């Protein structure tokens, strides 16, 4: 990962969402992207120029554009039509984003498009967050990494976050992934937990 004067940056054409530029690089703001927050808090996750990424919940393409700066190709799945309009503009200026308008909970619908990937990044806030990730593990190659941004409040607001975390952890492990690390995203995102998993 590239850091300039303590700021996380990525190298690519700027002006995607009005991001700040630093020595010609695009500043990756931890307040606007959970993945950037994860890097600020310290993680062993690395993005490389030969990495293939399946990105679930691409939204407006803010984080997607940074991930695409670091990697070979990003398969960006988003279900909502309005963010998709923005995502298409972002993808238009980058040759390595493949936009897919589909429900991440139904991977069969984009199965013909997506190849085996090194990294799955799951940022769909849904009560079925964990099972969405597990449904997409078929795209992850052996030894590949999966990142889940867990938001306990969209799973069940009435329960204590720690309880939801524990339950998610069991579900992930039963789904055949090994958990490498868990990182709380506070202070950038209170009550969010990032799970770093590996497929053995």
């Amino acid at each position, binding site marked *: 990962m590239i850091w300039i004067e303590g700021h996380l940056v990525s190298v690519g054409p700027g002006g995607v969402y009005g991001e700040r530029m630093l020595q010609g690089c695009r500043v990756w703001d931890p307040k606007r992207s959970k993945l950037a927050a994860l890097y600020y808090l310290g993680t062993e996750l690395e993005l490389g120029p030969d990495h293939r990424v399946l990105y679930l919940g691409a939204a407006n393409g803010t984080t997607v554009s940074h991930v695409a700066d670091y990697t070979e*190709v990003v398969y960006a799945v988003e279900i909502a039509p309005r963010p998709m309009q923005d995502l298409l503009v972002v993808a238009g200026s980058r040759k390595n984003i493949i*936009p897919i308008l589909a429900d991440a909970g139904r991977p069969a619908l984009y199965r013909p*498009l*997506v190849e085996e990937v090194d990294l799955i990044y799951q940022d769909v806030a849904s009560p079925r967050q964990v099972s969405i990730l597990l449904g997409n593990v078929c795209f992850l190659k052996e030894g590949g990494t999966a990142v889940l941004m867990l938001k306990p409040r969209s799973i069940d607001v009435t329960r204590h976050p720690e309880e939801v975390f524990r339950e998610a952890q069991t579900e992930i492990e039963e789904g055949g992934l090994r958990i490498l690390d868990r990182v709380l995203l506070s202070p950038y995102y209170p009550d969010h937990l990032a799970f770093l998993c590996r497929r053995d």
Partner: protein
Amino acid sequence: MESYWFGDVEGRACEPAPGDPGLLAERIELLAGSGDACIPDWRIAVRCGALRDRAEYLKRLRDAAFILAEKNLGRTLQLDHSGLIQMVRMLDQLDEVINLLTERSVEWHRATHPGFSRKRTLPADRTLIALIRQDADETLSGLLDEIERLRDQRSLLMKQVSRRAEEVLPNCSALAGGLVAARLATEAGGIRELAVMPAASIQVLGAKTALFSHLSTGTPPPKHGIVYQHGRVHGARRENRGRVARTLSAKLAIAARIDYYRKCADAEFLLNAANAVRRAGRRE
């Protein structure tokens, strides 16, 4: 045989798919629908002769994915007729803005004219705005002109909403009027959403506050929401109003389904429905 987006592979034999992105997009859609597609691998595509290298693989896939995404996008946006719904929301916000600006102008006028009172009865052909404009200064009267212009725009938009509703909701519009039909669809969140809604929900669409206060604290349930705007409902005698609203909503629920699934007016249904609503209002 294994089917990939770039071609069909059977053992060593391979049939490359046509390279045109539009045709590829159609192929991908078909493969996704069939459910037995395999996860693609670029090396198979090269071995098969469909593509030269990894760069060409990604370029072709990306072009096809773009066409597919744009096609699906057009489809979803068209489905919810968001044009009509956005028009109704604009209409509501215009009302809000016009009221706010008028209110503020009156306050301004009152501050500089101590003798002014709102209570004074207006001459039949004069609006409050016209009255204030008589002795307003240049800035205020310029603003008043703008308010008048917004009013004109509002009535133009209202006519357009009615017309559009008559096109996309012919049965609902014939039964309840274009504007009421459009408002119902907006409150429901779309034409499909209105079509799958039970009649009892349509009856109280737009009476959210009353409905939830009924559900949580047991106040009397609302008799009507937006359907109240229909002449037969608010024109009915008080004790009949609930029944008229219920009958009208029942018929509107059927009308919305015809609109969404059959997409044309059904004269026989409309005649029966109008009679039923009329009868409901007459009964003692």
